[in-house]
């Protein structure tokens, strides 16, 4: 890919990322009064994140077995109210150990 094309493509990517982020924030200043819509918007993060995690998390590493180990450890840590960082490190380490064990077994 030529450098000019690459730069144009990056600009296109940046534009289609920024547009959906900026439009509601720039155009929508009013407080929504409707309780249904307000509750809908408050619940939205959980619905979207849940859909983003499952089942994609199981295919986020080299093997589904190590990914399941990482997901289970993350779930246990999060259930015990550990912070973002602890859960992220715990999940990563669990995958690392699982893949190391898998390699030894093979």
């Amino acid at each position, binding site marked *: 890919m030529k450098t000019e094309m690459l730069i144009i493509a990056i600009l296109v*990517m940046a534009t289609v990322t920024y547009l959906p982020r*900026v439009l509601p*924030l*720039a155009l929508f200043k009013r407080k929504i009064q409707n309780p249904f819509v*307000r*509750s809908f918007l408050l619940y939205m993060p959980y619905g979207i994140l849940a859909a*983003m995690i499952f089942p994609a998390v199981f295919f986020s590493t080299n093997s589904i077995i190590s990914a399941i180990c990482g997901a289970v450890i993350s779930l246990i840590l999060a259930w015990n109210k550990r912070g*973002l960082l602890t859960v992220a490190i715990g999940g990563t380490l669990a995958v690392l150990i699982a893949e190391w064990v898998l390699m030894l077994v093979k």
Partner: protein
Amino acid sequence: MSDNKKLTFSAGLKDGIPIALGYLSVSFAFGMSAVSKGFPLWSPVVISLSNFTGTGQFVGVDLMAAGAGLLEIAFTLLIINLRYLLMSLSLSQRLEPNMSLLKRLAIAFGNTDEIFAVSMQQKDLLNYKYMFGIILSSYFGWVSGTVAGACASNLLPAMICSALGIAVYSMFIAIIVPPARKYWSVLQIVAIAIGLSCVFYWIPPFNKLSSGWAIIICGVISSAYGAYRFPLKSDNLEEGVQNEN
């Protein structure tokens, strides 16, 4: 979850640190994969500087590497990024109402999945100082991880790269599990979203739909159900039906 604390710039910086560290691993993987696909060293860094998004950047680089046209790149990424419409709409209700347009434009750039999820957990209305803080530390993690990944491309063993792939999902899990454990409403919403997401992943013909659309549909149906069954009067979940703990 942080209760009743002052939303200052330094509080924002601090809340951004775990996000930044989670980002380090993901953006490291991004920088590395871009360079290993033959892109020049500077390009993943410029992409991280100008895009500041996870999935979109990975998919964008994949498409470019496959020789896709600009229109295809634009359309695919737009669909992946449509969820930001909902997130920004949601965030617009939590920002201080008198915030200037310029500050809103700046905050919009930093409305990533993680920054959105963490800032939405604050009980008070969000001011620009807190938002700038959380965006700044997260952005720093995102960009520096990309630089390190692009430079280190072949240094890191494949096993570590593979393990880092799960980091961002672990963060998402850390965000949704505590409220799902506490509130019956959130638990049901999460369960519905996961169920639908699995249908869109495995069951034909639904699995023909791109993941961007699937996430939006799962998010809309599950939160609409939640809003119908458990409408909230105030701006936090506290009044919702709590589980016994």
